[in-house]
């Protein structure tokens, strides 16, 4: 008797979590859906086919988002891993960690607004390279701090062991450190990918509308009052992370939960 309400609440929670996904898909298939209709008068692939065929630029946006996010994720994961080693073995590691937290907790959009002058100056304004670098600057502290717990005594012992067994630096990384950190590297890659994939404010400032990632498109459609295209681009925005999550789930589960 006491347990009977739990399954009910749980099912409700599952429904609540799944509902947005279903609703967004429905909205992306709809057209001409106004108050007070509970269901759209049109459901079909009209919006999707239009997006895929004409020059709304959604496919290009998808591609450039993918390019930007993959670059940011790869570069920040690798550099975060390599640099965090020096930082967390450093005698002043507490101070260095604190320094890394400043850019980490500052709102990216404010950061970008104050940095934009330098990006302009370096010719990194309004191009993909600039957006990658700007996103890297905010993803890097995350990656760096992410690996802080990895560089413990035990890992240091492994490194020493490999050295006394005759391994050089390169072999230490390839044969031991990367395999040891594999799960963490994957999660960090996933997380930094998401940081980049979801970034709007910073991208809109550094990209000045010339770099149109998916999030920029979503906002554009919201501004246009075009819910249907907005929902469609939301779908494009959500589903790659879900796919990644699904394939990554083994590692993510092990490490996160």
């Amino acid at each position, binding site marked *: 008797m006491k347990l009977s309400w739990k399954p009910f609440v749980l099912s409700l929670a599952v429904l609540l979590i799944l509902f947005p996904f279903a609703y967004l898909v429905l909205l992306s298939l709809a*057209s*001409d859906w*106004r*108050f*007070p209709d509970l269901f759209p008068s049109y459901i079909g692939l009209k919006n999707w086919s239009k997006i895929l065929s*004409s*020059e*709304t*630029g959604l496919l290009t946006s998808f591609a450039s988002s993918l390019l930007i996010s993959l670059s940011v994720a790869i570069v920040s994961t690798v550099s975060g891993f390599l640099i965090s080693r020096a930082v967390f073995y450093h005698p002043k590691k507490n101070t260095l960690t604190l320094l890394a937290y400043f850019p980490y907790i500052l709102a990216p959009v404010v950061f970008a607004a104050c940095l*934009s*002058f330098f990006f*302009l*100056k*370096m*010719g990194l*304004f*309004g191009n993909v390279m600039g957006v990658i670098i700007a996103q890297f600057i905010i993803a890097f502290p995350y990656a760096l701090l992410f690996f802080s717990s990895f560089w413990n005594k035990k890992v240091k012992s492994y490194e020493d062991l490999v050295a006394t067994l005759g391994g050089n630096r390169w072999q230490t990384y390839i044969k031991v450190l990367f395999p040891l950190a594999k799960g963490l590297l994957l999660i960090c890659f996933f997380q930094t990918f998401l940081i980049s994939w979801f970034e709007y404010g910073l991208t809109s400032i550094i990209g*000045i*509308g*010339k770099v*149109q990632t998916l999030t*920029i498109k979503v906002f*554009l459609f*919201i*501004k*246009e*009052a*075009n*819910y249907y*295209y907005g929902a469609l681009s939301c779908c494009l925005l959500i589903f790659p992370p879900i796919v990644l999550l699904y394939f990554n789930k083994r590692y993510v589960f092990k490490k996160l939960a």
Partner: protein
Amino acid sequence: MYKLINIPIVIIACVLCLSCGEENTSNNEDLKKAAWKEITEAANGTTVNFMMWQGSPAINAYINNYVTPTVKEKYNIDLQISGGQGPEIVQLVMGEKQANIKSGQVDMVWINGETFFQLRKVNGLWGPFVKQLPNAVYINMNDSFINTDFQQPVKGMEAPWSLNQFAIVYDSIKIENPPKNIPELSNYLEQHRGTFTISNDFTGMTFLKSLLAELGGSPNSLDGPFDEATYQTLSQKLWDYINAHKKYFWKEGQTFPKEQSKMGQLYANGELLLIYGFSEGGIEEKVLSGLYPKSTRGYAWENGTIKNSNYLGVLHNAPQKAGAMQVINFLLSPEAQLKKADVNGMNSNTVLDINSLPSEWQEKFKKVAKRKYGPEMSALEKNAIAEPAPEYMIRLYDDFRKYVIEK
């Protein structure tokens, strides 16, 4: 250790120096005197960056599916579009000036009065260049709605692209007699509570200017340079009026939509019954795309709504000035303007003086299909007023926030 820490700083400094070293290759002054043939040659094979407002699918379709391929084919110009309007353009220009960048990100921009005013203030525009454009002969430069932008003479620093008038939009099924003046608006507000609002953006402020002119007593009450005393008296009346009726506004006037498109959404789903907008309300396209109900209609305010042009300008540090001129000239061609007037497309009024066109084009323009839902500009023109000086707009922004929103 300290030496090593300096290395990245040195690298950054080097990159800084290198990237600032790019010099603008085209000679600016010569271009202003050059013959069109030379400009055409210089424009061939260039990539032109066009920063424009991308908030409408119809406009985007016109640019992406018609203009871009045509200029590529005709002039071998790659047209790149980036999204950005008023403040973004000004910010970019100011930033580039501050960073002393000789070769900018953007060549041409789509602007109107207020941005024009700001860009002139920071010397952000290049020109005059309009007279050199061959298609400029079809534009009636004596029309005050064309040669004056927010009370400022254009003087060839920007080329007019479209003419349009501000219109009030309503649903003719739900509202039988929409208000045409301030007293009628009061009645409307009391009868249809929560169905009207003022967007805190360019569009909303333009509506306020119409009200300000009406409070001033005549369609011409705001003409001429900015007058502080006039503004003070009239704006005080305006805020008093709005605050007195605030409780009948959407959400009881506790908040206001950020932009016109939001207002459009609220109208589309029936929360608002009375809105307004440029381009004669932007009704046709929204009805055709299924966003607005088919019973949507538009009209002008009795004391007049703003009629103005919007313009195309070339930035002072545009790397491809000749290319930008070529594209602008194309956008002013009868062909491009006719396409732009298509009711199923961008549906915007031409700036060309139809009577000065060759007769074949005159015929084509006369055959353009009429709108099915929105009003024609010719029907509103008798209630048109000119844009007041830009300071009115800037002050209204500040004070609307100060005296209405934050109150």
